[in-house]
């Protein structure tokens, strides 16, 4: 099949090396602004800038959703009484009352409490 090949080499654009190189240079010169723009777009800083908007949008959505959830959740009010806590810790009631009233228990009261726990 290749024996039938017609020699079209006079039409070969690379045959005249000087002309070919000049064509390549012309293309490279015309391509330079686009290539530079692509280099700028692909730099790490440019990538971060490109990411900034979607990240801000995602953060905004997350903040709105979180605020909504927080507003719906009812936080139970802390009990004003310390009785429950004192009882759970095994603190005698007179001591707990003393703490509430900011009163220092007497020595006899302490002995009585100790006797009770024995």
């Amino acid at each position: 099949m290749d024996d039938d090949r017609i020699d079209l080499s006079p039409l070969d654009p690379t045959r005249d090396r000087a002309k070919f190189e000049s064509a390549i240079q012309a293309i490279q010169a015309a391509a330079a602004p686009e290539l530079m723009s692509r280099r700028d777009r692909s730099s790490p800083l440019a990538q971060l800038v490109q990411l900034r908007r979607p990240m801000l949008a995602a953060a905004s959505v997350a903040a709105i959703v979180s605020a909504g959830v927080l507003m719906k959740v009812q936080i139970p009010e802390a009990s004003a009484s310390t009785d429950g806590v004192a009882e759970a810790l095994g603190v005698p009631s007179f001591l707990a009352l003393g703490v509430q009233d900011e009163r220092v228990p007497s020595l006899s009261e302490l002995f009585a409490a100790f006797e009770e726990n024995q």
Partner: protein
Amino acid sequence: MKSVAGTSDASLVRKARNGDAVAFEVLVRRHYRAAYSVALAILGSGMDAEDVCQDAFIRALERLDDCRNPGKFAAWLLQIVRNRARNYIDYRRVRETVDLDKVVASSGAKTDDATVQAELRGTLQEALAELTELQRQVVLLHDLEGWKHREIAESLGVSEVASRQHLLNARRKLRELLGQELLEEYKNG
């Protein structure tokens, strides 16, 4: 340049997408002749084919992100060349042109060898003009650029059998038009 000369098209396209000028230049050098062949097949003028080639490579760079299969960059590029060449025909219709190849050939300013080459080029272009556009693309891609029928078929959207048939018909017609003597002359010199 040597380090990327053997690199695949896919890899070069990825680099060019990031603005790698060397990768883009390798792509241009690698596919310039195929692009020129297709442009010449459609336009019939070497000067116009060069203009369209330059335009098509820049267009391809601008749209490089649209090249879905970088491994088939050549086929994608040639489609751009075809589109640009057809647009150029429309543009040319409204513009009076002078075939500069012929001007150069008749100017006498060139050396004898250059004049002979220009005459051969002119004769070949006139003969090619008698073929259909498809035949011209097939014969130029095959006999000038050295593409295989599989590659030509894929690029032109025809079957391999059709590509072979177009080549056969194109060569037969070119031989009739050019004459065996002229073809021998090419081979000898």
